């Protein structure tokens, strides 16, 4: 029977926010500062059990407690209440090169950093060539680290980190650094770790990465576990919560042409929060002019949650010249089908003259989700036929 490798029981973490640090300030404000000390719960009653060989993603907005939870599991912070149990060697990649000292050479730093991460001198000797090889900076290995470019620094640090042979690996955002080939190298290595059955906990803001790499995702919000389950479900939840926030921010100013009533509609002409993949879809909005406007065009853009432009068009590109507008008009863009895969999407709407700056633009004026039964990663929904001969 597989025993869990990590068990988090009722963990809460309270931070007390104080601003005074010097003796004088403390003496002068001793009574007042205690009363004014602000309490802040970074984590509230988190329970978690992780079986070996799984990859858990922690997602959530800034300040939701992801990194705090990771640090508590890593033993760097102690929880206010509750406790964490775990077994096996653990390595935490919370920050690459945390133990590097600028005045030491690359070689000296490799040995120091390796021993900080728990490798013995003999092990480091054995791995040294492979570490240097992976980092690809042989020429500079005897140069002081302070002369390294930031890329070289990160490369060397990562090279050391992956040679630590952990059973549990904690990764916090470190994959976001480095150039693209290097990032790919990091991801490949993590995939290799997965293949070897190591347990990984990953904190990241890249939801795409989460869907690709994790088989379980925990969504945290204000220190509480909101969702614990399948990556698709957690990511969907997270995006919904985000789009609600976006809607709260709407502007009200005077425009020559004003957009209102932006909505999406399906083949039944009604608006839905979720559309199945491949169904017809339209975007509709009203344009209002106080005085006659003759030079105008309307456009829409479809973006995904990360802001990537999926598709954009306007009446000029479609070679349509709309009649002058006074009062209210309705504009409709229809798509026979929208072949995008599972996820949250946004519509930006704008009205503008043929040349010049916009009359009115609303970013993320409408949002909708596409649901897809398939779990294939990527932006477009394709239907492959796989043949094996």
């Amino acid at each position, binding site marked *: *029977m*597989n*025993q*869990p*490798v990590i*068990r988090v029981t009722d963990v809460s973490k309270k*931070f007390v926010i104080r601003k005074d*640090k*010097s*003796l004088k300030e*403390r003496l002068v404000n001793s009574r007042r500062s205690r009363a004014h000390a602000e309490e802040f719960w970074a984590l509230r009653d988190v329970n978690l059990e992780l*079986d*070996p*060989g*799984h*990859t858990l993603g922690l997602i959530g907005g800034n300040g939701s407690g992801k990194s705090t939870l990771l*640090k508590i599991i*890593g*033993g*760097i*912070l*102690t*929880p206010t209440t509750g*406790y*964490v*149990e*775990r*077994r*096996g*060697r653990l390595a*935490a990649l*919370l*920050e690459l090169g*945390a*133990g590097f*000292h600028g*005045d*030491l050479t690359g070689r*000296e730093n490799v*040995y*120091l950093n390796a*021993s*900080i*991460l*728990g490798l013995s*001198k003999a092990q480091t000797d054995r791995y040294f060539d492979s570490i240097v090889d992976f980092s690809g900076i042989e020429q500079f290995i005897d140069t*002081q680290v302070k002369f390294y470019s930031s890329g070289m620094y990160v490369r060397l640090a990562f090279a050391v980190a992956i040679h630590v042979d952990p*059973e549990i690996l904690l990764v916090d955002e470190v994959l976001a650094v480095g150039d693209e080939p290097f990032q790919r190298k990091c991801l*490949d290595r993590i*995939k290799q770790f*997965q*293949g*070897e*059955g*190591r347990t990984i906990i990953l904190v990241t803001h890249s939801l795409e990465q989460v869907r*690709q*790499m994790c*088989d379980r995702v925990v969504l945290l919000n204000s220190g509480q576990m909101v969702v614990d389950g399948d990556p698709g479900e957690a990511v969907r939840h997270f995006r919904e919560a985000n789009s609600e926030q976006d809607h709260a921010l709407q502007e009200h100013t005077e425009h020559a042409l004003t957009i209102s009533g932006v909505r999406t509609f399906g083949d039944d002409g009604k608006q839905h929060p979720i559309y199945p993949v491949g169904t017809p879809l339209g975007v509709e909005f009203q344009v209002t002019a106080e005085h006659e406007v003759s030079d105008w065009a309307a456009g829409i853009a479809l973006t995904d949650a990360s802001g990537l432009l999926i598709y954009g068009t306007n009446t000029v590109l479609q070679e349509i010249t709309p009649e002058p507008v006074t009062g209210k008009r309705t504009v409709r863009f229809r798509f026979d089908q929208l072949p995008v895969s599972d996820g949250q999407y946004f519509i930006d709407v704008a009205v503008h003259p043929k040349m010049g700056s916009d009359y009115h633009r609303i970013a993320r004026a409408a949002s909708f989700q596409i649901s897809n039964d398939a779990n*294939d*990663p990527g932006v477009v929904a394709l239907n492959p036929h796989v043949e094996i001969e």
Partner: protein
Amino acid sequence: MTVASTRPGTTAGPAFSEPDTPLQRINAPRGFWRGSTDTLAEIWRYRELLGNLVRKELKVKYKDSVLGFVWSLLMPLVQLGVYWLVIGKFLGAGAIPTYGVYIFCGLATWTLFSEVLSTATTSVVFNAGLVKKVYFPRELFPLAAVGAALVNFCFQLVILLVADVIAGASSGKWPNIEYLPMPILGLIVLVVWAAGIGMLLSAANVYLRDIEHLIGVVLMLWFWVTPIIYNVTRVSTTLPRALYQVYLMNPMAAVVFSFQKFFWPQGSGTPYEFSGDIYGRLGLLLVFGLVFLWLAQRVFARAQGNFAQEL
């Protein structure tokens, strides 16, 4: 490797540790009176890292300087010269035989003590980056400060021995090997006390940065209440009896006496020598020092849980 195949699913990989290894609670509260043995075992497991941290301290300190380690000798040597000239000659403390060796017995030990305290105090704060990102026993930081200071002390010991050879050749009085255990015990007492105080201060400095400034003032005062450049006989005749006993409670006083006893044979039998029971004092100090070090470690262990968030 394709994307789809990278999902490990529920397939269990190779077992690294035995699947029935019990889960271990991390950072378990161990109560104030227990848990020292666990920490000791943990420090022992990380001894290699401790060595590396000491090496780092030493390397970083004199990196890119031409004279390097010479600097750590120069400071006490210059101090020695100044005290010898100003106090020994100008102020006429010259009655103390081979005054230079006498001072250096005190200066060498004092330099070790003050270096441990001042570097240990800031050790945790200076390594904030590590404290916040990686787990290993935090006790290693003050201990590394002790280690680095001990290495510097070895160089000073060489100077002291050279001085002894010169003084011995000119006065015909050589250190008595019988007294050799005395400075060794003295050194142990010094390290135990310095490590204890350093550990306490390094933890306190995380919460109250004033400590690192305060320690400079305290060390200056402490220097002058330790019989380093003046002789203790003068103190015994000047101070009231009760106050003199308080004065002698200073652990550093006994440590300095123990070094003088062995390394300053020219003084034996003279009224400038401390006539009390040095072994007895050292023994008592060692017992109290060990209790203090243990208490300091318990306080440190209590405090260290919050280091990462306070830094």
